[in-house]
């Protein structure tokens, strides 16, 4: 039981910062440190680099640079998009449409708005985690001001029919926000073609630094500020710019889009091998999420009769880092709302494992996981009073 081996398969939780990205950030800590709002040379030389980063982000998603606003991450972008557009359009209506499988940054924000007098429809999903465009259409009322649906789910990887929803929203004249925190860097996005009005992203999901993200806001979208204060970000998001973070985000998104096809192909190959190996070698196992319309890096399973945290800890003892939507990892009593939403009973949802692959993972890593995982699952099942009954 050596812990010398360290295999990271939790890239959907966060990634390391790519060395090339860090390299580009470093001078902005110690050498180019002026405040970009300052008019002196120290400020001007920094401002230029923020503009470059903004262009890189814009280019990666098909937006204009002036439509990109930097935030402290995906959560702030989600909070801003939803609260900002809800309050800005209160006179038009008070109804918001979202889904039951959104990230908490969206769900808890919507729940907060409910307390403030907004009405929210939480659309269900099918057993693959897919929202139906017809459901969206039927949920629209003349009070609807915002549709917010995630691009791809963080737990089960399912990718939503964004373009169809965008078209529908445009046809109905309703704003469409998408939480693309898991999608950017893994999926080709074009906000104009897909009729996306607002889009959230976060650098630490694609080898950029933690604590920096962006909100794309289509020109013309009515949105009030969320962070009030100084005139940064053209008066729409206050706070001295996180310059190294912004530079890092710019570099990371450029790198990620540059090698998107290539890296998706490679990771999909690894992921398919992993999924196939698990499904073939471990009985009573389900693959969560859509079989095809899913993020390349996402492998999400439920192993019946065992609980996710003890599975994770055993994997960790063997040097493998994954994650689980098990209640025990979150400190709550209910397992992940996403797993319940796709129709899994509680006892099965408790036994989930997400392995999310990344740049550093190799075939050997997958082989190693395929070697140790069946043993661990079996060990835990042997210990499980639920499993007795099955064998018996």
């Amino acid at each position, binding site marked *: *039981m050596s812990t010398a081996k360290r295999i990271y398969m939790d890239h959907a939780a966060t990634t390391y910062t790519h060395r090339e990205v860090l390299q580009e950030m470093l001078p902005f800590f110690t050498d180019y440190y002026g405040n970009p709002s300052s008019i002196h040379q120290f400020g001007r030389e920094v401002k230029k680099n923020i503009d470059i980063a903004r262009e890189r982000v814009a280019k990666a998603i098909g937006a204009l640079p002036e439509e990109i606003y930097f935030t402290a991450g995906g959560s702030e972008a989600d909070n801003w998009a939803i609260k900002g557009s809800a309050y800005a359009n209160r006179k038009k209506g008070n109804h918001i449409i979202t889904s039951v499988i959104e990230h908490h940054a969206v769900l808890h924000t919507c729940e907060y708005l409910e307390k403030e007098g907004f009405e929210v429809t939480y659309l269900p999903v099918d057993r693959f985690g897919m929202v139906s465009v017809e459901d969206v259409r039927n949920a629209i009322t003349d009070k609807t001001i915002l549709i917010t649906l995630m691009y791809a789910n963080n737990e089960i990887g399912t990718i939503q029919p964004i373009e169809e929803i965008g078209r529908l929203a445009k046809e109905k004249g309703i704003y469409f926000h998408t939480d693309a925190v898991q999608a950017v860097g893994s999926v080709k996005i074009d906000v104009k073609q897909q009729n996306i009005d607002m889009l959230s992203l976060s650098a630490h999901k694609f080898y950029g630094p933690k604590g920096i993200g962006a909100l794309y806001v289509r020109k013309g979208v009515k949105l009030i500020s969320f962070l009030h204060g100084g005139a940064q970000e053209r008066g729409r998001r206050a706070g001295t710019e996180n310059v190294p973070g912004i530079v890092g985000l710019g570099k990371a998104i450029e790198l990620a889009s540059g090698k998107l096809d290539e890296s998706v192909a490679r990771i999909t190959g690894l992921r398919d091998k992993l999924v196939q190996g698990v499904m073939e070698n471990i009985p009573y196992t389900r693959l969560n999420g859509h079989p095809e319309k899913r993020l390349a890096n996402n492998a999400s399973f439920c192993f019946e*009769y*065992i*609980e*996710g*945290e*003890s599975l994770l*800890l055993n994997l960790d*003892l063997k040097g493998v880092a994954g994650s689980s939507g*098990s*209640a*025990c*990892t979150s*400190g709550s*009593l209910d*397992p992940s709302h996403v797993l319940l939403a796709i129709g899994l009973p*509680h*006892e099965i949802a*408790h036994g989930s494992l997400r392995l999310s692959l990344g740049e550093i993972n190799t075939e050997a890593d997958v082989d190693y996981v395929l070697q140790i995982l069946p043993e661990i699952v079996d060990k835990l099942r*042997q*210990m*499980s*009073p*639920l499993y*007795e009954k099955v064998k018996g």
Partner: protein
Amino acid sequence: MYSEKVMEHFSNPRNVGELENADGVGEVGNAHCGDIMKIYLKVENDVIVDVRFKTFGCGAAIATSSIATEMIKGKTIDEALQLTNKAVVEALDGLPAPKVHCSVLAEEAVKAAIEDYKNKQSKK
């Protein structure tokens, strides 16, 4: 997160398994909540001479099961009934706050097994 003691019991749980013809069996918790503990007792002359457990649950659930079985093995029924969740937590050098309920479950599982033993005795 977990103390070394918890991890030690989690990695090498003692007394895992079942006992055929157990004198008492207790099962508490439910799959819905993600924790089930089942304890098997072998009792001779009011002394717990053997004990086994099976647990479906998180790291803390497994570790508390393991240490609880150790703590009651060789004890009399009355002594075993004194086992508190607090003693279990202390024996493990502490548990994170959200996991304390696992120690409660362990205490309850022991008590349920002893109750079952007593019931069986009185029916004899």
